[in-house]
């Protein structure tokens, strides 16, 4: 059986283009008090006449509008989604179910602690498990995404150095790091020094030693790094950084490679963030919400953002009295709903399960690596864990680039891998299969990749003109930038 077939799908205009005056999809509770005209309540000058151009459609149209649009998306329930660095694993239905339990979903963030003991227990329990999983001492679940976790962590590092009387000036970041790392460092008031990678795809330890001065606040390390390579010099790295009074921040986005095998706390990491929306299966939602808990050693605990949850005999409390804290990062407790899902996932998998997930994720990635390494250029021969980065250098002489390969995969029924990241690998094709999918699915992906490589040599235009099987062909990104249209506007009459 081939994996794909072509079929008819439905177009759908913008909601504004569907709108006609007089339609409506809403039903509000009826007003159960006497109806005072609003002009009697307030100076009508404060009111707008209407929300101009707001849509007017029926519920039927609303539902078909979004239903049709939904069919234009590829998604995790459809099949393998091997976006490297994104850990596109299965998002359990059970997570979704428990997060919608009314007693959890309809709680107000400012209701008294005593009235929120269930929620606080959920947060507390998740804090405990994340500490255990990472081997760290303390945690705050507030950061609403990975990058906010990074910001929190670096602000904590800075606060620590300030208490040591010198905030220091620089943050060291390997050139393979994710863009959020340098951006977060800047937002924390630091300047970034980039550290090159060595010939094995790891951080260049000599360069590190050289750049690591007493004016360096910390090293931001991704481990395993964005090539999927474990920084095996970690002990040495730790020594170098700590010797100069610096700290190590770990970007834990790739934690799916490590569960049950090693813990940041055991390898000299001082602070890290995890992405609950990667390792802990909370859904990506088409771009969020995520959750990026910041987790630290005792030495940084006083600086954690507030509030965190602690247990006082049989009562859970919000800790907001912590004078050295870097403060708040979110109006309330971050993306609480994601914490519920992550806890559900941890309880579902259990200690053995979590370890097994990492094992299968790493096995799958290595299987793909082995099966594809005769067909695609592998820039580093270093062993890798949960993901593998190839390049387009074998196909490029035939005019086929990473972008083309990615787009061609669409026609084979797969979501493309991450492309052109990490930046240090030219034409990177970054594949992260995760633990979720079957061997049939992996094999089918592998054979698609091999077919595309063949096509690149034999009929390259099939690849360079792809995709043909999606809602749109390749989009003109240059025009989007040159003549930005960032919203719908009514046609001028």
């Amino acid at each position, binding site marked *: 059986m081939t994996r794909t077939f072509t079929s008819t799908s439905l177009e759908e205009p*913008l*909601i*504004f283009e569907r709108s006609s005056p007089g339609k*409506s999809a809403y039903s509000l*509770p009826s*007003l159960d008090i006497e109806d005072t005209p609003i002009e009697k309540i307030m100076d009508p000058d404060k009111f*707008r006449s209407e929300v101009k151009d*707001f849509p007017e459609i029926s519920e039927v149209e609303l539902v078909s509008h979004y*239903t049709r649009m*939904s*069919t234009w*998306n590829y998604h*995790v329930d459809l099949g393998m*989604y091997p*976006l490297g660095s994104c850990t596109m694993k299965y998002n359990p239905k*059970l997570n979704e179910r428990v997060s919608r*339990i009314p*007693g959890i*979903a309809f*709680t*107000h*963030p400012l209701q*008294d602690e005593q009235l929120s003991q269930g929620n606080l*227990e959920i947060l507390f329990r998740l804090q405990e*498990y994340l500490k255990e999983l990472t081997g760290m001492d303390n945690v705050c679940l507030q950061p*609403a995404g990975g990058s906010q976790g990074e910001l929190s962590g670096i*602000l904590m590092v800075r606060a620590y150095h300030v208490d040591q009387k010198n905030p220091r000036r620089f943050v060291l970041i390997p050139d393979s790091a994710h*863009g*959020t790392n340098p*951006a977060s460092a800047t*937002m924390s008031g630091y300047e*970034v020094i980039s550290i090159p990678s060595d010939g094995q795809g790891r951080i260049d330890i000599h360069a590190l030693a050289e750049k690591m001065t007493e004016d360096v606040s910390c090293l931001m390390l991704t481990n395993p790094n964005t090539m999927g390579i474990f920084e095996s010099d*970690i002990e040495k790295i730790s020594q170098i950084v700590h010797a100069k009074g610096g700290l190590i921040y770990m970007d834990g986005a790739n934690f799916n490679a490590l569960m049950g095998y090693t813990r940041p706390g055991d*390898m000299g990491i001082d602070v890290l963030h995890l992405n609950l*929306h990667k390792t802990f299966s909370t859904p*990506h*939602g*088409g771009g*969020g*919400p995520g959750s990026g808990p910041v987790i630290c050693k005792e030495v940084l605990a006083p600086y954690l*953002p507030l509030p965190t949850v602690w247990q006082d005999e049989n009562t859970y409390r919000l800790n907001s009295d912590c004078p050295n804290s870097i403060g*708040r990062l979110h*109006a*309330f407790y*971050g993306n*609480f709903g994601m914490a519920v899902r992550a806890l559900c996932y941890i*309880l*579902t*998998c*259990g200690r053995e399960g979590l370890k097994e997930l990492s094992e*299968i994720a790493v096995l799958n990635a290595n299987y793909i690596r*082995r099966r594809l390494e005769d067909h695609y250029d592998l820039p580093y021969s270093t062993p890798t864990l949960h993901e593998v980065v190839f390049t387009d250098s074998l196909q490029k002489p035939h005019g086929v680039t990473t972008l083309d390969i990615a787009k061609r995969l*669409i026609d084979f029924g797969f*979501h493309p891998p991450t492309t052109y990241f990490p930046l240090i690998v030219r034409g990177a094709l970054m594949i992260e299969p995760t633990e*979720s999918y079957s*061997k049939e699915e992996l094999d089918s992906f592998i054979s698609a990749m091999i077919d595309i490589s063949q096509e690149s040599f034999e009929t390259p235009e099939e690849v360079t003109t792809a995709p043909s099987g*999606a809602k749109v*062909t390749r989009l003109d990104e240059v025009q*989007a930038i040159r003549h930005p249209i960032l919203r*719908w506007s009514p046609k001028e009459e």
Partner: protein
Amino acid sequence: MNILNILKKKPRKTFMRYTSITPEEKKSMLKVVGVDRVEKLFETIPEKVRLKDTLDIPNAASETEIIDYFKTMGEKNVSADRWDCFLGAGAYNHFIPTTVDSIISRAEFYTCYTPYQPELSQGTLQAIFEFQTLICQLTGMEIANASLYDGSSALAEAVLMAQRLTKKSKFFVPDSLHPHYQKVLETYVSNLDIQLKTLPLTSTGMLDLDYLQKTLNDEYAGVVIQSPNFFGVIENIGEVTQLCKEMGAMTIVVVTEAVSLGLLKPPGELGADVVVGEGQSLGMPLGFGGPNLGFFATQDQYKRQMPGRLVGQTVDTDGQRGFVLTLSTREQHIRREKATSNICTNQGLCALICAIFLSTLGKRGIRELAEQNLKKAFYLKELIGDSIEFSGDIFNEMVVRCNQDPIAINTKLLDEGILGGLPLGRYFPDRSDQMLVCVTEQNHARNIQHLATALTATNK
């Protein structure tokens, strides 16, 4: 369920449910890879840092046990589905049409990634493009981004943008800003060259325009103003933008109760440069404060300095309309340390929720919703009469002076099925006799009456 039940359980040998490789397949794959045991694949982790013990995490729990556990947790909370909730202060208990959850429960929307590969993400992209437009229409601004974490970090990002644009560093921040927003803003600017100056309020509850007029000078990058403000009072945005324009400062308007925009003049029309806020009111459950939705709208001229993702319209090779993430040279994945913000993952699904909510309500519904809030709040206000702290116009929140301890009042109300307002002593020691009360379309008339009685009761 006692969590000990979970802990007690016998360990399960394999965990197949969320993985799909059989033991046989595992063997054959290991063979292809060239190792005999999966542990071998982890040998790049130095022996010394490898974990020797098993994790102190419970054994796998069954689906039933997990559902029971979370239900039990839910029962340990008071929640707005069973108590009539008069808490607002940045999180609002509004009606959520059934369409919302029904649509976002489609895996097509909730399991996909950020739409980096536009050809396979047109559903998400078109929805966000619609969201951006809806936010523009609601705020009266020209452009809006694809979302930020929440209202508070959106405010912080707005201040950072104003600093970049004006190259100035002082900001006025009113005392009537949500105290948590104030704190988040402080965190974000703490190590940057930005100074926050407080702006007092008057007995109307509105910011002191005279003071602003007197003190605002051309060293100021901007003025932050929340409307309706933390105390529920509607600010005179037009006057502030007027003053700011004269001094070359930017006006940043914060909206925590987005439903108000269905009725009140949009900040854009009143001259705001940036409108940021919290979209939770527009379709998200209270959710103990998250996930919610930061929105960010501004003028077209600032688009290259905006934080966050933007969806733009373009054409494909056949000339067909399509949507892409655009102007990404502002962003961290391209610009790294020079990016306009570090944000990457945002609140995509919440933006979708908001778009569905607003499309469901539509032009008439958003108006009716806002009017109901105004009318019901007014109903309470009338019942309370003299004990209203501020004289300014309000939308759906108000500060009430109580004759009894607000905390004690709440305790009593709880037994009557009412989750009372926010005792202000928590944030303002000098307002420990006051309560911030919110009324929405969800509150029942009889409970509003109850509440009014409780709030105005004198000590027995």
